[in-house]
């Protein structure tokens, strides 16, 4: 039960709320009328016509083709895709790093545990922006392209960025996407069918082999039909540049590395907390069954800890996606950086900032929905 506010019954409660809303509306009206007057005085257009007008600024790197003179809308899409790219790469790297360091902090090896906790404490107590600047400077201090550091002879790190192996697609790429989607949906259907068959007959028909055949066969078939060729490009130094592979600019590399090191430290703490929260009895029961420490961790403790780990980790993912907007400070053209130059260009700050907010709202909702779905799946029956 909660206390009622004095006079919050019926009519008076609504009167108070109406008054509060009226004040809010008056404030909004006052701000809006100021804005209209200011826009007129400064001869700034309003509305979203500027999206169709050509954009002046060049964008250093983009996932889809772009050149100055394309519409502002296309520039914004390029920025949005860059933001998505950074967020996806950051999340993909931060998660294993965080899990590894979180487990390392609990290691019985004193040296390893201290090292991991030193890392976590340092990274968490310094602003991300300071980390990014430091990494960017380090990146610029790397050897030149000719003398690039080789990582296992497949990845190369130099002051011009990181070159990684990549799939090179020669021809239309959409059949591959369609084939993968078809394989995914069919495998999912098979999985459900197997579930039902298992309930009915007690025997589970094989799913995995069929799934593999479907994915590989489907993709191969699609490629054969449209004549697209896919090759796995391993970069190699060819004169003044790298041929093959995918080159991540120094800015992108700095941003992805910085974001994942930073988020990794926070995820490590979450993982550690989740593992510590599992009662010692679970460990002991595992040992009593004759399992080694590593197998107890993997088979008994981690699956239970995961339920505690997923919700706060979702928050870290959201933070990482939002922090990707720091790209502007080191000159990577993400959504916020692109919109910033559009504001300078057109002066239409209100619309542009509204677009940033809308984009991040969608991104946040998307990540949250995905993680909630997964969270519901790993929850034990009865928790849902």
């Amino acid at each position: 039960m909660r206390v009622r506010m004095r006079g919050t019954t019926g009519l008076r409660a609504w009167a108070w709320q109406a008054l509060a809303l009226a004040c809010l509306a008056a404030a909004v009206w006052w701000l809006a009328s100021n804005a209209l007057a200011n826009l007129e005085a400064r001869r700034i257009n309003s509305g979203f016509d500027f999206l169709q007008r050509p954009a002046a600024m060049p964008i250093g790197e983009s996932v889809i083709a772009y050149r100055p003179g394309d519409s502002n809308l296309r520039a914004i899409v390029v920025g949005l895709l860059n933001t998505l790219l950074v967020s996806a790469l950051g999340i993909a790297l931060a998660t294993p790093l965080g899990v590894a360091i979180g487990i390392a902090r609990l290691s019985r090896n004193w040296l390893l545990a201290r090292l991991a906790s030193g890392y976590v404490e340092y990274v968490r107590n310094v602003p991300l922006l300071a980390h990014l600047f430091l990494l960017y400077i380090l990146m610029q201090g790397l050897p030149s392209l000719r003398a690039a550091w080789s990582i296992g002879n497949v990845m190369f790190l130099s002051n011009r960025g990181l070159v990684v192996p990549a799939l090179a697609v020669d021809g239309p790429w959409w059949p591959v996407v369609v084939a993968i989607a078809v394989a995914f949906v069919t495998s999912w259907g098979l999985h459900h069918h197997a579930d039902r068959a298992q309930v009915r007959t007690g025997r589970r028909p094989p799913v995995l082999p069929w799934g593999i055949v479907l994915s590989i066969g489907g993709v191969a078939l699609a490629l054969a039909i449209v004549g697209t060729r896919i090759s796995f490009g391993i970069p190699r130094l060819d004169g003044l540049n790298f041929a093959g592979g995918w080159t991540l600019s120094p800015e992108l590399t700095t941003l992805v590395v910085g974001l994942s090191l930073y988020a990794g430290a926070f995820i490590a703490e979450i993982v550690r907390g989740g593992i510590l929260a599992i009662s010692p009895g679970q460990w002991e029961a595992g040992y009593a069954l004759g399992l080694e420490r590593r197998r107890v961790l993997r088979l008994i403790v981690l699956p239970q800890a995961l339920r505690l780990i997923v919700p706060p980790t979702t928050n870290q993912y959201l933070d990482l996606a939002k922090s990707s907007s720091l790209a502007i400070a080191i000159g990577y053209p993400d959504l916020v950086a692109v919109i910033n130059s559009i504001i300078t260009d057109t002066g239409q700050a209100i619309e542009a900032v509204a677009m940033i907010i809308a984009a991040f709202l969608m991104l946040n909702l998307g990540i949250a929905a995905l993680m909630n779905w997964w969270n519901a799946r790993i929850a034990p029956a009865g928790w849902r």
Partner: protein
Amino acid sequence: MRANLFGGWVNALATVTIAVLVATVASKLAHWAVIDAVWSAPPGSSGPCRAARGVGACWALIGEKYRFMLFATYPYDEHWRPALACAIIVLLYLATALYRHRLCWLAALWGAGFAAVAILMWGGIFDLPLVGQERWGGLPVTLLLATVGIGTALPLGILLALGRRADELPLIRLVCACYIELIRAMPLVSLLFMASFVLPLFMPAGVSIDKLLRAQVAFTMFAAAYMAEVIRGGLQGVGHGQVEAATALGLGYWRTHALIVLPQALRSVIPALVNTAIAMLKNTSLVLIIGLFDFLNAAKATIVDPAWQGFGLEMFISISLVYFVICFSLSKYSQRLEGQLGQAARH
């Protein structure tokens, strides 16, 4: 200890590998940062540093530039004023940590302290020359943004949290929930953009708000949403019996919350509030994106000087260490508080 480090051959191997790695890195670092480093240089000359380039660190840069790093564009002859202001703010925090139970006394101290800080920073009276906000910079800007931001966000956050839990007022609850979720969904950078580009458009003609103040407004709005969620967690932890008992005593909504619920709720979330404060302190560094000279941006500006270009590594390492010392001590304090509060709860 021996079982810890050398129990089992896998463990022993790991220990040796890590030890060798750490030793290698540490010895290289020691050579670069201490043994071969350049600790001092003649004023205005980066010659010795250039000579040691790639071999040793150039700490002489810090000695040369520390005044600009700390106070940026504040008039040089008046630097003692922001220095004193920073000292006052740090002392206020220390006093709060040491005597956190004497609330009235602390409130008076903070009032007096901030009056002194305002007089020192602005001047204009007591023969102190007036210094406009556009010339402030460096550490005092970082400390002020964080302190004022947290100080104003806390009451706002309490109101938002109460509003979000006001079941009888669905419209108010909706407004509060929307505000909190909207702010938490967007990056601080976009809020700062709003303060920098959009806010001026919303002001009546002729009214212009100073950039620092605009950033402060954005910062307060941002922090309030996060504080509100932390406080809401605390409110949820206060038992129903407390509220019922207060109602039985004839207390109304505001007195129930001010005297019974909030003291317990806030007490239980002090560690979480300190953690939010640490996050906000780190977040102040983002104001460099709208061109304000906080501690980080002032440091970044020093290495634009052609004579000292190329020594950014030393600069950012020093800056990171300063942030680390501040935030690490705050987080250690928060952990100790958590322990104390946990013990108090168990008694």
